[in-house]
Protein backbone atom coordinates (compact mmCIF):
# COMPACT_ATOMS: atom_id res chain seq x y z
CA UNK A 1 0.00 0.00 0.00
CA UNK A 2 1.53 3.34 -0.97
CA UNK A 3 1.80 6.53 1.08
CA UNK A 4 -1.28 8.02 -0.55
CA UNK A 5 -3.56 5.17 0.51
CA UNK A 6 -2.10 5.16 4.02
CA UNK A 7 -2.78 8.90 4.19
CA UNK A 8 -6.38 8.57 2.93
CA UNK A 9 -7.28 5.80 5.37
CA UNK A 10 -5.36 7.18 8.35
CA UNK A 11 -6.69 10.72 7.94
CA UNK A 12 -10.27 9.47 7.56
CA UNK A 13 -10.09 7.14 10.56
CA UNK A 14 -8.67 9.79 12.89
CA UNK A 15 -11.05 12.46 11.57
CA UNK A 16 -14.01 10.26 12.52
CA UNK A 17 -12.56 9.27 15.89
CA UNK A 18 -12.08 12.96 16.73
CA UNK A 19 -15.65 13.82 15.71
CA UNK A 20 -17.19 10.85 17.52
CA UNK A 21 -15.22 11.30 20.72
CA UNK A 22 -16.40 14.91 20.84
CA UNK A 23 -19.97 13.62 20.90
CA UNK A 24 -19.07 11.22 23.68
CA UNK A 25 -16.93 13.07 26.23
CA UNK A 26 -18.26 15.23 29.06
CA UNK A 27 -18.38 18.89 28.04
CA UNK A 28 -16.30 20.12 30.99
CA UNK A 29 -13.21 18.18 29.85
CA UNK A 30 -12.58 20.40 26.86
CA UNK A 31 -14.04 23.71 27.92
CA UNK A 32 -10.82 24.99 29.49
CA UNK A 33 -10.09 28.43 27.97
CA UNK A 34 -6.46 27.50 27.19
CA UNK A 35 -7.57 24.49 25.16
CA UNK A 36 -10.05 26.70 23.29
CA UNK A 37 -7.33 29.29 22.64
CA UNK A 38 -4.77 26.78 21.36
CA UNK A 39 -7.47 25.18 19.23
CA UNK A 40 -8.15 28.54 17.56
CA UNK A 41 -4.46 29.16 16.87
CA UNK A 42 -3.48 25.76 15.43
CA UNK A 43 -5.36 26.22 12.13
CA UNK A 44 -3.75 29.65 11.68
CA UNK A 45 -0.27 28.15 12.08
CA UNK A 46 -0.77 25.08 9.90
CA UNK A 47 -2.67 26.79 7.08
CA UNK A 48 -0.18 29.68 6.90
CA UNK A 49 2.70 27.20 6.76
CA UNK A 50 0.94 25.32 3.96
CA UNK A 51 0.39 28.51 1.96
CA UNK A 52 4.09 29.37 2.21
CA UNK A 53 5.46 25.89 1.53
CA UNK A 54 3.18 25.37 -1.46
CA UNK A 55 4.09 28.78 -2.87
CA UNK A 56 7.85 29.01 -2.31
CA UNK A 57 9.30 25.50 -2.27
CA UNK A 58 9.78 22.73 -4.79
CA UNK A 59 11.02 19.30 -3.60
CA UNK A 60 12.72 20.67 -0.42
CA UNK A 61 14.34 23.58 -2.29
CA UNK A 62 13.38 27.22 -1.96
CA UNK A 63 11.96 28.52 -5.23
CA UNK A 64 10.40 31.78 -6.30
CA UNK A 65 8.51 31.45 -9.58
CA UNK A 66 5.15 32.15 -11.25
CA UNK A 67 3.40 31.07 -8.03
CA UNK A 68 4.52 34.32 -6.37
CA UNK A 69 2.30 36.22 -8.81
CA UNK A 70 -0.61 33.88 -8.08
CA UNK A 71 -0.22 34.36 -4.33
CA UNK A 72 0.07 38.15 -4.68
CA UNK A 73 -3.12 38.28 -6.74
CA UNK A 74 -4.88 36.11 -4.14
CA UNK A 75 -3.83 38.51 -1.37
CA UNK A 76 -5.08 41.51 -3.35
CA UNK A 77 -8.38 39.71 -4.01
CA UNK A 78 -8.78 38.94 -0.30
CA UNK A 79 -7.96 42.55 0.64
CA UNK A 80 -10.71 43.61 -1.77
CA UNK A 81 -13.04 41.18 0.04
CA UNK A 82 -13.55 39.03 -3.06
CA UNK A 83 -15.47 35.78 -2.53
CA UNK A 84 -13.50 32.51 -2.25
CA UNK A 85 -13.98 31.29 -5.86
CA UNK A 86 -12.73 34.63 -7.24
CA UNK A 87 -9.66 34.45 -5.00
CA UNK A 88 -8.79 30.97 -6.24
CA UNK A 89 -9.58 31.58 -9.91
CA UNK A 90 -7.74 34.91 -10.14
CA UNK A 91 -4.67 33.35 -8.52
CA UNK A 92 -4.77 30.42 -10.94
CA UNK A 93 -5.32 32.60 -14.01
CA UNK A 94 -2.48 35.03 -13.27
CA UNK A 95 -0.07 32.23 -12.39
CA UNK A 96 -0.98 30.25 -15.52
CA UNK A 97 -0.51 33.33 -17.67
CA UNK A 98 3.00 33.97 -16.37
CA UNK A 99 3.94 30.27 -16.60
CA UNK A 100 2.77 30.03 -20.21
CA UNK A 101 4.59 33.25 -21.18
CA UNK A 102 7.85 31.83 -19.82
CA UNK A 103 7.54 28.36 -21.32
Amino acid at each position, binding site marked *: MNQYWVAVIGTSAIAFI*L*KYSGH*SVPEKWLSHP*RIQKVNALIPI*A*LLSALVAVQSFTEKSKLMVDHRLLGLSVAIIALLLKAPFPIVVISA*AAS*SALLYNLNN
Partner: protein
Amino acid sequence: MSKVNSATLRDSLSVSLTVGAYGVAFGAAAVANGFTVLQSCLLSLLTFSGASQFAVVGVLGAGGTALSGIATASLLGIRNGLYGVIMAPRLKVKGFKRIVAAQITIDESTGVALGQEVRSSEAMRQGFWLTGFGVFIFWNLFTLAGALGAQAMGDIRAWGLDSAVPAAFLGLVWPRLKTNSDRALAIGCAVFAVAMTPILPAGLPIIATAFIAIAVGVRR
Protein backbone atom coordinates in the same frame (compact mmCIF):
# COMPACT_ATOMS: atom_id res chain seq x y z
CA MET B 1 -39.79 15.94 12.84
CA SER B 2 -42.10 18.90 12.74
CA LYS B 3 -42.40 21.27 9.80
CA VAL B 4 -39.10 22.77 8.71
CA ASN B 5 -38.73 26.48 9.43
CA SER B 6 -38.36 28.16 6.00
CA ALA B 7 -35.68 30.57 7.20
CA THR B 8 -33.70 27.64 8.60
CA LEU B 9 -34.06 25.78 5.31
CA ARG B 10 -32.86 28.84 3.38
CA ASP B 11 -29.82 29.34 5.64
CA SER B 12 -28.91 25.66 5.46
CA LEU B 13 -29.23 25.42 1.68
CA SER B 14 -27.30 28.58 0.91
CA VAL B 15 -24.42 27.51 3.15
CA SER B 16 -24.50 23.96 1.73
CA LEU B 17 -24.30 25.08 -1.86
CA THR B 18 -21.63 27.75 -1.36
CA VAL B 19 -19.38 25.62 0.79
CA GLY B 20 -20.02 22.49 -1.24
CA ALA B 21 -18.79 24.29 -4.35
CA TYR B 22 -15.34 24.65 -2.73
CA GLY B 23 -15.18 20.90 -3.28
CA VAL B 24 -14.12 21.70 -6.86
CA ALA B 25 -10.98 23.34 -5.47
CA PHE B 26 -10.33 20.36 -3.22
CA GLY B 27 -10.83 17.74 -5.95
CA ALA B 28 -8.50 19.66 -8.25
CA ALA B 29 -5.92 20.18 -5.48
CA ALA B 30 -5.92 16.50 -4.56
CA VAL B 31 -5.30 15.37 -8.12
CA ALA B 32 -2.71 18.13 -8.65
CA ASN B 33 -0.83 16.79 -5.63
CA GLY B 34 -0.72 13.21 -6.90
CA PHE B 35 -3.89 11.63 -5.47
CA THR B 36 -6.10 9.55 -7.76
CA VAL B 37 -9.71 10.54 -8.46
CA LEU B 38 -10.87 7.63 -6.26
CA GLN B 39 -8.61 8.67 -3.39
CA SER B 40 -9.78 12.29 -3.70
CA CYS B 41 -13.42 11.22 -3.52
CA LEU B 42 -12.81 8.87 -0.59
CA LEU B 43 -11.20 11.72 1.35
CA SER B 44 -14.30 13.83 0.83
CA LEU B 45 -16.66 10.99 1.77
CA LEU B 46 -14.78 9.63 4.76
CA THR B 47 -12.66 12.47 6.17
CA PHE B 48 -15.28 15.11 5.31
CA SER B 49 -13.48 18.09 6.79
CA GLY B 50 -12.19 20.66 4.31
CA ALA B 51 -9.13 22.01 6.10
CA SER B 52 -7.92 18.51 7.07
CA GLN B 53 -8.38 17.26 3.52
CA PHE B 54 -6.50 20.20 2.00
CA ALA B 55 -3.74 19.70 4.57
CA VAL B 56 -3.15 16.03 3.88
CA VAL B 57 -2.97 16.55 0.12
CA GLY B 58 -0.73 19.60 0.63
CA VAL B 59 1.74 17.73 2.83
CA LEU B 60 1.97 14.68 0.57
CA GLY B 61 2.18 16.91 -2.49
CA ALA B 62 5.15 18.68 -0.89
CA GLY B 63 6.85 15.28 -0.55
CA GLY B 64 5.88 14.62 3.08
CA THR B 65 5.24 11.15 4.45
CA ALA B 66 1.80 9.70 5.11
CA LEU B 67 2.48 10.05 8.83
CA SER B 68 3.18 13.79 8.69
CA GLY B 69 0.16 14.26 6.41
CA ILE B 70 -2.10 12.37 8.81
CA ALA B 71 -0.73 14.27 11.81
CA THR B 72 -1.22 17.68 10.18
CA ALA B 73 -4.76 16.81 9.06
CA SER B 74 -5.63 15.41 12.47
CA LEU B 75 -4.49 18.55 14.31
CA LEU B 76 -6.88 20.49 12.09
CA GLY B 77 -9.61 17.95 12.88
CA ILE B 78 -9.46 18.54 16.64
CA ARG B 79 -11.91 21.40 16.34
CA ASN B 80 -14.57 19.05 14.97
CA GLY B 81 -14.23 17.16 18.24
CA LEU B 82 -14.87 20.39 20.12
CA TYR B 83 -17.94 21.03 17.94
CA GLY B 84 -19.12 17.55 18.90
CA VAL B 85 -18.82 18.52 22.55
CA ILE B 86 -21.01 21.57 21.86
CA MET B 87 -23.58 19.72 19.73
CA ALA B 88 -24.01 16.48 21.70
CA PRO B 89 -26.13 17.89 24.55
CA ARG B 90 -28.22 19.82 21.99
CA LEU B 91 -28.88 16.91 19.62
CA LYS B 92 -29.28 14.19 22.27
CA VAL B 93 -28.86 11.29 19.84
CA LYS B 94 -27.57 7.75 20.46
CA GLY B 95 -26.42 4.71 18.52
CA PHE B 96 -26.43 4.93 14.72
CA LYS B 97 -27.81 8.47 14.72
CA ARG B 98 -24.86 9.57 16.84
CA ILE B 99 -22.44 8.04 14.32
CA VAL B 100 -24.14 9.96 11.49
CA ALA B 101 -24.23 13.16 13.55
CA ALA B 102 -20.50 12.80 14.31
CA GLN B 103 -19.58 12.39 10.63
CA ILE B 104 -21.42 15.61 9.66
CA THR B 105 -20.12 17.62 12.63
CA ILE B 106 -18.08 20.32 10.87
CA ASP B 107 -17.68 24.11 10.91
CA GLU B 108 -20.78 24.77 8.81
CA SER B 109 -23.30 22.40 10.42
CA THR B 110 -22.31 23.60 13.88
CA GLY B 111 -22.28 27.24 12.81
CA VAL B 112 -25.71 27.17 11.18
CA ALA B 113 -27.18 25.18 14.09
CA LEU B 114 -25.96 27.66 16.68
CA GLY B 115 -27.24 30.51 14.49
CA GLN B 116 -30.74 28.99 14.56
CA GLU B 117 -30.83 28.71 18.33
CA VAL B 118 -32.49 32.12 18.61
CA ARG B 119 -35.46 30.75 16.60
CA SER B 120 -36.05 27.54 18.56
CA SER B 121 -34.25 24.42 19.68
CA GLU B 122 -36.17 22.54 16.98
CA ALA B 123 -34.84 24.96 14.32
CA MET B 124 -31.36 24.50 15.78
CA ARG B 125 -31.52 20.72 15.32
CA GLN B 126 -32.99 21.06 11.82
CA GLY B 127 -30.24 23.52 10.90
CA PHE B 128 -27.60 21.02 11.99
CA TRP B 129 -28.98 18.06 10.02
CA LEU B 130 -29.95 20.04 6.90
CA THR B 131 -26.61 21.82 6.68
CA GLY B 132 -24.61 18.71 7.54
CA PHE B 133 -26.30 16.58 4.87
CA GLY B 134 -26.43 19.46 2.39
CA VAL B 135 -22.72 20.20 2.60
CA PHE B 136 -21.97 16.45 2.50
CA ILE B 137 -23.89 15.96 -0.75
CA PHE B 138 -22.58 19.05 -2.56
CA TRP B 139 -19.00 18.71 -1.24
CA ASN B 140 -18.76 15.16 -2.57
CA LEU B 141 -20.33 15.93 -5.96
CA PHE B 142 -18.09 18.93 -6.49
CA THR B 143 -14.99 16.99 -5.37
CA LEU B 144 -15.62 14.48 -8.13
CA ALA B 145 -16.07 17.28 -10.67
CA GLY B 146 -12.85 19.01 -9.58
CA ALA B 147 -10.83 15.79 -9.56
CA LEU B 148 -12.00 14.78 -13.04
CA GLY B 149 -11.36 18.29 -14.33
CA ALA B 150 -7.82 18.37 -12.98
CA GLN B 151 -7.11 14.89 -14.33
CA ALA B 152 -8.07 16.10 -17.81
CA MET B 153 -5.68 19.08 -17.62
CA GLY B 154 -2.27 17.42 -17.91
CA ASP B 155 0.40 19.99 -16.92
CA ILE B 156 -1.27 21.58 -13.91
CA ARG B 157 1.11 24.55 -13.91
CA ALA B 158 -0.15 25.63 -17.33
CA TRP B 159 -3.61 25.95 -15.75
CA GLY B 160 -2.43 27.68 -12.60
CA LEU B 161 -3.48 24.85 -10.29
CA ASP B 162 -0.15 25.05 -8.46
CA SER B 163 -1.22 28.56 -7.39
CA ALA B 164 -4.89 27.74 -6.89
CA VAL B 165 -4.01 25.39 -4.05
CA PRO B 166 -2.08 27.87 -1.87
CA ALA B 167 -4.70 30.51 -2.74
CA ALA B 168 -7.37 28.15 -1.39
CA PHE B 169 -5.38 27.68 1.83
CA LEU B 170 -5.01 31.42 2.11
CA GLY B 171 -8.77 31.84 1.64
CA LEU B 172 -9.34 29.38 4.48
CA VAL B 173 -6.97 31.08 6.91
CA TRP B 174 -7.81 34.70 6.03
CA PRO B 175 -11.08 35.01 8.02
CA ARG B 176 -9.28 33.63 11.09
CA LEU B 177 -6.75 36.48 11.14
CA LYS B 178 -8.68 38.87 13.35
CA THR B 179 -5.99 40.46 15.52
CA ASN B 180 -2.45 41.66 14.94
CA SER B 181 -1.10 38.80 17.00
CA ASP B 182 -3.00 36.31 14.79
CA ARG B 183 -1.37 37.92 11.75
CA ALA B 184 2.06 37.85 13.39
CA LEU B 185 1.59 34.16 14.15
CA ALA B 186 0.57 33.48 10.53
CA ILE B 187 3.57 35.31 9.06
CA GLY B 188 5.95 33.78 11.61
CA CYS B 189 4.75 30.27 10.82
CA ALA B 190 4.92 30.88 7.07
CA VAL B 191 8.52 32.12 7.28
CA PHE B 192 9.50 29.31 9.67
CA ALA B 193 8.05 26.59 7.45
CA VAL B 194 9.76 27.88 4.30
CA ALA B 195 13.09 28.42 6.09
CA MET B 196 13.04 24.89 7.54
CA THR B 197 12.08 23.19 4.26
CA PRO B 198 15.67 22.63 3.02
CA ILE B 199 16.73 21.40 6.49
CA LEU B 200 13.93 19.19 7.86
CA PRO B 201 12.34 16.16 6.12
CA ALA B 202 9.31 17.12 3.98
CA GLY B 203 6.10 17.62 5.96
CA LEU B 204 7.83 18.30 9.28
CA PRO B 205 8.25 22.08 8.75
CA ILE B 206 4.45 22.34 8.46
CA ILE B 207 3.53 20.24 11.47
CA ALA B 208 6.24 21.92 13.56
CA THR B 209 4.30 25.19 13.33
CA ALA B 210 1.53 23.59 15.43
CA PHE B 211 3.98 23.68 18.34
CA ILE B 212 4.51 27.41 17.76
CA ALA B 213 0.71 27.82 17.99
CA ILE B 214 0.58 25.76 21.20
CA ALA B 215 3.43 27.76 22.75
CA VAL B 216 1.72 31.05 21.85
CA GLY B 217 -1.71 29.84 23.03
CA VAL B 218 -0.46 28.60 26.40
CA ARG B 219 1.46 31.80 27.16
CA ARG B 220 -1.32 34.23 26.30
